[in-house]
Structures are given as C-alpha cells and as structure tokens.
C-alpha cells in the first residue's frame, strides 16, 4: 500500500469526492488560489475551478451559514475553518442552525455539511490559537464529531463524512498533517461511530483519539517493554461514541485511562469515563484516570506549553498508577 501524509490523504479524499459527485464543493478562507492555510486543498482550484473551490471573506459565520444554505438546497459543501479556534465565531450557525434544522423541519430538509478545522497546541501559537474545542461540539446533539489520527482514517472518514446527510464536525490536528501512513488504494470509506482497536491487550485499556492516539501508541510500546499489555483504542469518532468497543475492552482489562489534549474539566474524557462507569461499573478494578490537557489557557513559553499537553511519560505514569 502506498504511504502518504495525513494532508495528502485529506486532499485525495476531497478530490475523489468532488470527482465522484458534482454537488460536492469546498469553501473557506484561502482554500482556492492559495491552496489552504495548511495546504489541504492544494490543487483543487486548478482542477475544479472557482465555482467549486470558493475563497471566502474572513467571516466564519458567513462561511458556515452559506454552507448550511447550500446544503439545504441540495449541495454537499465542505467548509474549511482555518483553525477550530475561529469556529467560535461560527458557533451560532453550527449549534443553532446546522445541528437543529433537520429536527426543527421535521426531517423535511437535511444538512449534508462537513465543517473541517485543524486544532490542537504545541506550536507556540498562544492561548487563542492552540485550543482543542471538540467537547464544545460533542456536547451538542445533532452534530457528529470525527477526529481521525491516521492518513488511512483521515481519507476514509472524510469521504464517509461528505456522503453523510447530517452535519459533521471534522477536526484535524496540526501536528498530524505531516505524519505518514499506508492508505489503501482507490475508493474506500470508514464508518462514522466506530472506534479502532490499534493494539490488543489484557492489562488495561488506553483510550485516545487524534494526535493523542500517537502519544498513547508510543506509551503502549514502552509499556510492553515493562511487561504491560495495554489495549489501545482510537475513538476516531467522538460522537456518536462507540460504546460497545469501549465496554467490551474494559470488561476484559478491568482498567482504563483516557488520553486527551483538551481541557480535563468537562472534556471528552469526562464523558467517556462516565459512559464506562454507567455500562461497565462492575468490571472496573481501579478508578478511570484521565490524562488531559491542563486546565489553563495555553501558555506561550515552550516549556510551559509542553507541560500543559499530555506527554508519553504522563501516559505511562497513569497506566502504572491504575495497575
């Protein structure tokens, strides 16, 4: 299988879907001539032209609002927000419109919309540009939240998201764009709502997603050297959550830790751990531990920023603590 970057995988997904379905189009800031702030849409403008690759003004509410209208009218827009931090400007469109229209119109209209946005910290971009806001979207019924960690998943899930009839918040991590991985040739999709078990194990379950799935994977490898066999689950989709896979794993291992970059308070781990408590309480042999981003606006200083984001050694320590 060919090995490509996460960025190329997303680009392939967009191109293939635009070739397959004329109703698919891309809109966002600098997605056309410039090829996207993170170069995900590179080459699409040349291939599909300005009607299907639309450069938008710096107005996130407008980008998402226009995309919602197009989706209601029968198109399949893929809106790119330069980073998830700017999604806050579009929250009314996302939460009050995209997520609710299908419900409030009694199913008579649907919103087949994908909102793509990179996020995450670690690049010294300061408190306003380094956030992981997935739990904001996770909290809102009517949205599906997808956060792939590998090129293969990125391509398969983006293609699936474009084909879905409901609004999808598709969150990428800036650190992942240059990571490489094998991608199956040709057209394939990966179902939304299905976690991946990256590694089988019996001692504890390590649950993570997006960039933290890579950190968790490194920790799992080091734990093997200590004789600890962890089961590694990459959620891939945060909403709907693949509870069956989580519960089956915890029933086997009796222990779980969750690795997430977002803030610990009210974060993804809070939701995931509670679901496990609700459905597998009698299988737990230790409290679930969350390895999460520190509850602080992201510090600019490099050493402080690194201390605020979970590291491999934090995961290892948490794993040992629950064993």
């Amino acid at each position: 299988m060919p090995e490509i970057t996460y960025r190329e995988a997303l680009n392939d997904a967009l191109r293939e879907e635009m070739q397959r379905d004329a109703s698919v189009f891309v809109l966002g800031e600098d997605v056309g001539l410039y090829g996207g702030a993170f170069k995900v849409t590179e080459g699409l403008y040349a291939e599909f032209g300005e009607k299907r690759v639309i450069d938008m003004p710096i107005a996130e509410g407008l980008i998402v609002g226009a995309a919602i209208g197009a989706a209601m009218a029968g198109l399949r827009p893929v809106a790119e927000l330069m980073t998830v931090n700017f999604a806050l400007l579009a929250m009314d469109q996302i939460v009050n419109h995209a997520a609710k229209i299908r419900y409030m119109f009694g199913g008579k209209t649907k919103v087949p919309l994908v909102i793509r946005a990179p996020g995450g910290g670690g690049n010294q971009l300061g408190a306003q540009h380094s956030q992981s806001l997935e739990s904001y979207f996770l909290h809102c019924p009517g949205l599906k939240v997808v956060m792939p960690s590998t090129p293969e998943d990125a391509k398969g899930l983006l293609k699936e998201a474009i084909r879905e009839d409901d609004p999808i918040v598709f969150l990428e991590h800036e650190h992942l764009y240059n990571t490489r991985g094998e991608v199956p040739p040709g057209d394939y999709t990966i179902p939304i709502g299905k976690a991946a078990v990256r590694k089988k194990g019996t001692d504890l379950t390590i649950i993570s997603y997006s960039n933290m799935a890579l950190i968790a994977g490194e920790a799992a490898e080091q734990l093997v050297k200590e004789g600890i066999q962890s089961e590694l689950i990459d959620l891939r989709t945060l909403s709907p959550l693949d509870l069956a896979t989580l519960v089956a794993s915890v029933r086997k291992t009796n222990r779980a830790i969750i690795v997430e970059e977002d803030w610990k308070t009210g974060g993804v781990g809070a939701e995931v751990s509670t679901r496990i408590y609700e459905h597998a309480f009698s299988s737990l042999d230790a409290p679930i531990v969350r390895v999460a981003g520190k509850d602080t606006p992201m510090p600019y200083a490099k050493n402080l920023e690194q201390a605020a984001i979970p590291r491999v050694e934090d995961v290892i320590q948490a794993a040992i603590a629950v064993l």
Partner: protein
Amino acid sequence: MPEDIIMPKLSDTMLEGTLLKWFKHEGDYIQQGETLFEVETDKAVLEVASSVSGMLTQILVQAGEKVPVGTAIAIVGGELPKVVPQQEPLPEGAQKTGQAKKPPAQHKETPQLKVVPHKKEAGEAAFAGGTHASPAAQSYAAERGIDLSQIAGTGIGGMITLKDVRDYRAHLPSRETPFPAIPAEPVPAEGTTVLSTMRKAIAATVSHSKRTIPHFYLSYDIDMTTALNRLVELNRNRNDADTITINDVIIKAASATLKNYPYLNALYPEQGLVLKKEVNMGIVIGLPEGLIIPVLKSADSLTLEDISRGVKKLREKAEAGKFSSDDLTDGTFTISNLGMLGVADFAAIIYPPQTAILAISAIKDTPVLKDGLFIPVKMLRVTLSMDHRVVDGISAANFLRDLTRYLEKSDFETVAKPCCTVEDD
C-alpha cells in the same frame, strides 16, 4: 371413545405413585399436553400432562391415594357419570320455591402481590462492612461467596483489587463448588424410625446393585491445572447464572470420551446387554431427603455451555422437587461428584441397569516430581466403578486414560462469549 388415564412409570425404579393433586375437575375439558395431575414417586414430585384431549369424565383415584404403576386413575371422553343429587334437608321454615339452588360462590384465589425481600446487590455487603474494594473485586467476590474482609488490598489506597480476590481464592482449600454444600441433617432422636419412600427406594436400588453386580474399581489422578485455568478464562465475562463449573467440564469430557466406549455407555437388564449410542448422563444430586439422579439427555452432542445450562436447570428442578417425567429416565451413565465436600477418594455404586459410574473426588494442590523438580499441580482423583460382567480392566483403563487426556488438554470447543449488551443511547 372414553380413554383411561393410567398412573405412569416416571422413573426406572418407580413401582407405585401417590396422586397428590388434580389440576382439572370432572367435566372440565383437557387438551393433550396440558398438565392434568401431580404425582409423588419414590424420587420426586412430578407434574404429568394429559396424553389425550377430551372431557375429563371421571376421576377414579382421588388426591392422596397411592396406586401401582399402570392403574387407571381417570377417564377422558364418553359421558359424565350420572350423579344422584344428594337430598339436603331444607332448613326449617324455608319455602320450596322450585328454583334451582344457586351453587356456592366459587372461592377464587385472587393473586396477591408478593413482597420480595430486598436482596443485597453484589458489593453492597462489602460497602456496608466498610471494606474498600473495587467494583470488579466486589462483584467477583459476591458471585463466588468470598468474604472480602479476609483479604488485604494491594490496589490504590489499599483497595482490594480483582487480582487480590483471585489470589485469595486460589489459595482456598477447595476452589470449585459445583453444587452448594448440602446442609447438615438434623440429628434424629434415638429409636426406630420409618424410612421415607425415597429412602426405601434408594435402599432397594443400592442393595440390588451391590448384590447382583460384580463391581470393580479403577482410579486415575488427573492434572486439572490447565482445565481450571481455561475455566477462569471462560468465566471471566460471565455472571453467576452463566458460570461454567468444573463439574460441567467433567461431564463434557466424560460424555465425549464415552462415545468410544459403548460397553461403559450401556444397559444390562436381565433381558441382555443393550449398547447405547447416545450418552444420557445421569448426575447424582444430594438432597436433604436423599439422592436423586436426573438425566442430561444427549450430553455427547451438547456444547460445554449447553451442558452447564442443562445441569443448572436440573439442579433447580431438584431443589424445587419438580421434575418432568422425562428428567429421571433413560440414563446410560452416571457421574457422582463429592469433590465440593472435600472427599479425598471414593467409589460409587452402579445405578442399575447401567454398567458404570464415575466418582469425582476433590481437586487437591499436589506436588508432582517432573524433570527433577517439584511442580504444583491441581490434582483430581476419579474412580470408575464397573460391572465386570460387561467390562474388563483394559478397556476401562483406556477410557480413563482418554478421559485424562481430554481433561488435561482441556481444548473444549470454542464457547461463544456473551456479547456485551450496550444500551443504545
């Protein structure tokens, strides 16, 4: 066309039965298969279904009467017998009006709400006692009746973990309790006492067996370490109701092995030897009032899970004292397990007309010398009792050898694990 309902033969040793109860009255219509009456045999209380459909026209044997097997006890079909109305003297001063007397109002039993005493949930007891144990440790302990207060915790903050409970359990003298311990019988007062029907039947059967069958015995020691480990694996995700016991495993192994030893899976009544293809496994269950041997049908074609479920069902019926007429007949081989009571070694008496019975003693931690080293082994002593008229030592030894191989390998067919049920929310 009126048909007789007769006292059925509900067990191999049943000669007579006491009619305990009719579920229908004369004049009621009965469907074939509908429960008609209840009988106490020498072994159990059984409900019997009607073999025919029609009106129950006459009850010949009243509740409480004991009659030999084959006696007609009721008639279905034909006409109701003419009843001569009993002349009741009219109360003084009453006027004869010619109106039909209103029958006394039927005293209908109104179903009452049952008050179920609050049952402690798994782990609740432990909380009450202030023991600090993980949910997994608590449910594991509760399912197996382990007292958490005896265990020192090694988890976070001294919490008792699953491993702590498993380790503790591994060091208990007897790990498996296929059947709950039989409560000690009350000590009877001195003097002559009348044997119960059941006791009499047991006495007759064992005396007949020992008098007429030339028993001989072979014992084998089987290393159950692998089997017990497999069992822990199999039970990891099972709750109490689904737990597979070591007894189930032995039944599975014996049933599978017997397929190759038809002389041990045979009947030898006076008329001559009958070899059986199918293994109908008799399982000795001890009750306070005596022994009972329900039969797990076609055990050789059942999976380990099916066996476990079947045995549990038979055991429940035994405790309730209610077997279907089918449950006690047609056994071809029997297993008697006293391992849970710590019995070191015993030989069982053959249950005629069968030709063999397997006695299971306790599993013991035993050091075994292997390659110059002592290794700990979970050793099980089994003893096969055989009818020497039918079986010789060599084939019986081969049977035990194969049984040992099967158990020591413990490569049961893959048992489907219960799938996690997750509510869709």
